[in-house]
């Protein structure tokens, strides 16, 4: 690392050379760079800081290339799902979302030079509304769990109630995050095993679709139940499954959240993620997050001789923190815009037929895998109703032991859900098979399970 006293620029990321700096300092009227920090308290200035030495670009790539290879992700077969699923992401997604005009822009505060981000945001809102069957969408929140928490806060605001209900089985991470946000707002969170436990105190009923154990939920009766009680139906839906399943908006949902990461790209250890947030029209001015609206140029056709053109702006900003401050609907500012762009392009590339075909392929492959596992001696696949892409497997040895034996064979088993309350989950692992699970992986799983069965 050349020090700042050597000739030239101190680093490839910092263009000013020593000569530049000298000239600039003279113009500013100080002798040395450190003089610009004279306001900082002397007692605390320039502390000892222990950081590893700087690396050149080749050294950086070598170090982190080795680190990436330490992850077993690429070398193992994995049947983990539970909120993060392997998807066939169209190749054009990473190509288009690598365009630096998208990547290196910020929040579109200047619409005249941000139409790319804004019009894409409007595309995203449109796609989310179509998938969910809702009236309005924002441009995306952090992830499904925080989006669901925001949904609970919205429901509490509009119903003026101070409790929310989560219907099991729901992703434990989602339930945790709702709990964190509810703690801020002073809301009680009740985890219900049945909608019968709903009361007039509940601002909403949160229902995951498909549920945490993979089962497809009939939303309509649940919507009727919660509406009878004066609460809102919040549906946490897998947007990919919505290629096949009834749109929650058609089943009575008032708010729909979801996770968009998997359709947008790789799981990346869980993030960047993408929270979808759509709602019915009555809640438009209570929405959290940024919203893009369509409008026209201000130019006067008579003066300019040209018709005003169509453009997009951030709108309904009176809800937001930078205007409303402590009375804002949420503190959200930067969210996940680039992931929302990837999600939009992926869904649009699939198109109406591709999305349906892909969702059906996922369904067929998962059910075929489950059937093959269930046919093995000593194994069963407990069903709780129709399901989409995740199934429970109970084997000849306890769930933890089954996972460990699979791991020794290079296979990462589905999540161990044996400690859950649902009777079907007893002693079970939750396997995910999707449209993107290679055929050979399922074959290897079936072989491995069979050989484990033989050992017992």
């Amino acid at each position, binding site marked *: 690392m050349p020090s700042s006293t050597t000739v030239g620029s101190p680093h490839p990321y910092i263009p000013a050379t020593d000569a530049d700096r000298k000239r600039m300092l003279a113009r500013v009227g100080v002798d040395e760079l450190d003089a610009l920090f004279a306001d900082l308290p002397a007692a605390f200035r320039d502390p000892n800081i222990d950081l590893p030495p700087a690396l050149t670009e080749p050294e950086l790539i070598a170090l982190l290339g080795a680190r990436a290879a330490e992850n077993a992700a690429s070398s193992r077969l994995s049947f983990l799902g539970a909120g993060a699923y392997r998807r066939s992401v169209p190749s054009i997604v990473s190509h288009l979302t690598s365009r630096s005009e998208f990547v290196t822009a910020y929040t*579109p505060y*200047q619409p005249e030079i941000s139409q790319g981000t804004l019009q894409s945001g409007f595309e995203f809102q449109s796609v989310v509304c179509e998938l969910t069957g809702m009236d309005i969408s924002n441009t995306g929140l952090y992830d499904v769990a925080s989006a669901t928490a925001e949904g609970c806060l919205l429901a509490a605001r509009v119903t003026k109630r101070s409790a929310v209900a989560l219907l099991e089985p729901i992703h434990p991470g989602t339930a945790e995050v709702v709990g964190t946000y509810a703690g801020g707002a002073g809301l009680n969170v009740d985890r219900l095993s049945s909608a019968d436990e709903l009361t007039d105190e509940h601002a909403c009923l949160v229902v995951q679709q498909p549920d945490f154990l993979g089962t497809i939920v009939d939303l309509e009766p649940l919507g009727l139940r919660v509406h009878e009680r004066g609460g809102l139906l919040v549906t946490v839906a897998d947007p990919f499954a919505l290629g096949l399943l009834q749109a929650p908006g058609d089943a009575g949902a008032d708010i729909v959240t979801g996770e968009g990461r998997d359709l947008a790209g790789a799981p990346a250890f869980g*993030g960047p993620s993408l929270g979808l947030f759509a709602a019915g029209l009555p809640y438009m001015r209570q929405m959290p997050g940024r919203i893009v609206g369509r409008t026209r140029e201000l130019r006067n056709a008579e003066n300019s001789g040209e018709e005003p053109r169509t453009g997009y702006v951030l709108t309904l900003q009176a809800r937001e923190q930078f205007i409303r401050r402590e009375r804002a609907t949420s503190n959200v500012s930067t969210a996940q815009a680039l992931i929302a762009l990837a999600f939009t392009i992926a869904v649009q590339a699939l198109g109406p037929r591709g999305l349906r075909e892909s969702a059906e392929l996922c369904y067929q492959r998962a059910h075929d895998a489950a059937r093959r596992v269930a046919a093995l001696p000593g194994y069963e696949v407990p069903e709780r109703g129709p399901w989409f892409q995740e199934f429970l497997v109970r084997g000849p040895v306890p769930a933890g032991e089954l996972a460990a034996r699979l791991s020794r064979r290079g296979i990462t088993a589905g999540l161990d859900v044996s400690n859950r309350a649902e009777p079907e989950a007893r002693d079970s692992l939750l396997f995910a098979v999707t449209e993107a699970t290679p055929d050979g992986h399922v074959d290897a799983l079936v072989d491995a399970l069979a050989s484990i069965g033989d050992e017992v």
Partner: protein
Amino acid sequence: MTAPGSRDEDFGARLSFDRGARGRRAVDVPAWSGVQTPLPDSHLLRDSVRLPEMSQGELVRYYTALSARNYGIDSGTYPLGSCTMKFNPKVNDLIAFLPGFADAHPLAAEEEAQGTLRTLWELRRGLAEITGLPAVSLAPAAGAQGEFAGVLMIKAALEDRGELGRRRRILVPDSAHGTNPATAAMAGFAVTHIPTADDGSLDRATIERELDETVAGVMVTVPNTLGLWEWGIEEVADLIHDAGAYLYADGANLNAIMGRVRYGDLGFDVAHLNLHKSFSTPHGGGGPGAGPVCCNDELAPYLPTPIVVEDDGGVVRLAAPERSIGQLQQFHGNAGVLLRAYAYMRALGLDGLRAVSGQAVLNANYLRVLLHGHYDLPYDLPVLHEVVFSGSRQRRQNGVRTYDIAKRLIDHGFHPPTVYFPLIVEEALMIEPTETEPPEAIEALAEALIAIAEEAERDPDALHDAPVTAPIGRLDETTAARRPFLRWQDPGAVKS
């Protein structure tokens, strides 16, 4: 025929939904040739989804045309104050996309994700060193979520002290980012605004008067949003602690002080950082970011879950702090962004980070002197990473608003600075050049702003028409808000 995005076309009038043709497709899906399982009962299924039908090439052209209607840091100077729009090193993206990192499942066994976890552990240690706050959670997805975590941590600590019942107020300066008061409210606190004194720092008399047993915490941005050092913050920290409250640092402006002074040493109890600002990760048109929260030992038990820890056997693990406020996301945060931030920290090292803050501050001051006299400077003092001018003279004398000045800057090829923020500066122009701009770019920006000031005197009306070179002119934001049009509508459907 015109190419998509040509200036002759009303490009925005036709969404992807209005393009292509029925029956086209951009990807094909493998057929299933195995045993067919009957689909679930039809009342659980949908008929179809309305989506565009475009070929692959059409879809690529449409989004390529959209990208051409955007301006990013790679396009040119982007001096958006408070946002630290520095160059985003490309090697960071390359690293985050390595399959070993990208394909890691969030629920994979820790032993199978050591590459990611080891890297996050080292990032955590680095951030602790840089902030002087030893405990860190990398979980928050963005600055505002980091703020939320920090304020919830204060709340939890007060609850354990048995004082939450009476400590219901958070003090926030009137120059603060809007996220600060919004966050305090989300965490259930009342907000008291503290005025800014003539030297740009918190008004000490008000702070001293307000600090009592009803105060939970004070949120301060250091350096503040005027780009100025917060005078005597280390003494204010003592006053706050003597009153039994906590001091929170909004770390949005860390770029000014990296390697030179640390929040922990100054007496801050908890801070959030915006890695998409100081640590160069791409802003993405509004995310993804990352907003780690760093704190002292007293607040460490309350950090959000997970934190990254190394066990006795040298294995890096995810853990829940003893009295954690809980999880903020379903999984562990924006790991892909954190990997980029780590790569940035390693590319710079301590000397490099000090060179970053040094050059960032020099660039802001260089711009300050180049523009001095051409625009009002309400706080006429040497600055740190950014400088806040005012267009009030142009408004008063020429009827030109900061809004007009910003729009004309687009015609000069620049992204405008942040405008009308901080709220305490009339007609504010908040300019943050960052260290990655060469002096020529700063001089060109200054020349453009001086030319606009001259134009304001000579031909103010012309400025009201700016920009004239952008892909689209000024848009009707009022109608957009009054008659919201928020999603594609089928032009064939009956209009309501």
